[in-house]
């Protein structure tokens, strides 16, 4: 469950504007676009978690990373993250050896499953981390993905 405060913070602008009909939903959404620059520029797991506002994440077996053991093409690596930790609020996908570690972050509102999948780029064989925030605590799971052809050349 999100607390009321978090819910209000995360959805206040979008929700309020859309609800009173001043703006179409799309316009409201386009105006509320946070982007955590510090987190996306961080180089490693510890820096990213710090930039997200947490401290040392605990290892968790309740987070599953679904990805191939060996990715033939680093430009397109399918990665899914599922968290069984109750009240999962955010899911972040990190690649240890990419120039900037953080690849993607997802906010999971109540009612949405903490199970997202996307495709990322990997420069080389590396550990991939899934960082999950639940009840304001951070958890992490790790999986190594071997890359036979790097994704940085394009």
């Amino acid at each position, binding site marked *: 469950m999100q607390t009321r405060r978090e819910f209000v913070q*995360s*959805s206040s602008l*979008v*929700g309020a504007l*859309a*609800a009173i009909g001043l703006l179409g*939903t*799309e316009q409201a*959404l*386009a105006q509320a*676009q*946070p*982007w*955590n620059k510090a987190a*996306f520029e961080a180089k490693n797991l510890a820096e990213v978690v710090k930039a997200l506002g947490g401290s040392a994440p605990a290892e968790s077996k309740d987070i599953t990373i679904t990805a191939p053991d060996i990715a033939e093409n680093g*430009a*397109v*690596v*399918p990665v*899914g993250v599922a968290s069984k930790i109750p009240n999962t609020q955010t899911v972040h996908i990190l*690649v240890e050896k*990419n*120039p*900037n570690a*953080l*690849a*993607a*972050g*997802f*906010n*999971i*509102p109540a*009612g*949405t*499953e903490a*199970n*997202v*999948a*996307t*495709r*990322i*780029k*990997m420069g080389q064989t590396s550990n991939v981390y899934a960082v999950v925030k639940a009840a304001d605590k951070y958890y992490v799971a790790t999986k190594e993905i071997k890359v036979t052809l790097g*994704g*940085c*050349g*394009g």
Partner: protein
Amino acid sequence: MPDPMRIRATAQPDGVDVRVLMSHEMETGQRRDGAGKLVPAHFISNVTVSHAGKVVLSAEWGPAVAKNPYLQFKFQGGKKGDEITVTWVDNKGETRTDKATIA
């Protein structure tokens, strides 16, 4: 105007399964062109999916998301015939919104 997204949303017993395929270059800013100059970064930074006026997923992406990004997730509370809205914004301020009906 960027190309439209392909969105597939299907109602299943345990929630609505949403799959989105966006059309975007997702340039990392690390790559050099033929003349050895860095190609400036150009990537989708924010994605928002909403259903019935409520945000069901929002994402912040970096340039390490693969070209023509794919996104899949599942949410509760939707039913067949409902409309979902997907919006992305990239780091140059371009944006695209597409709607789909839950099947």
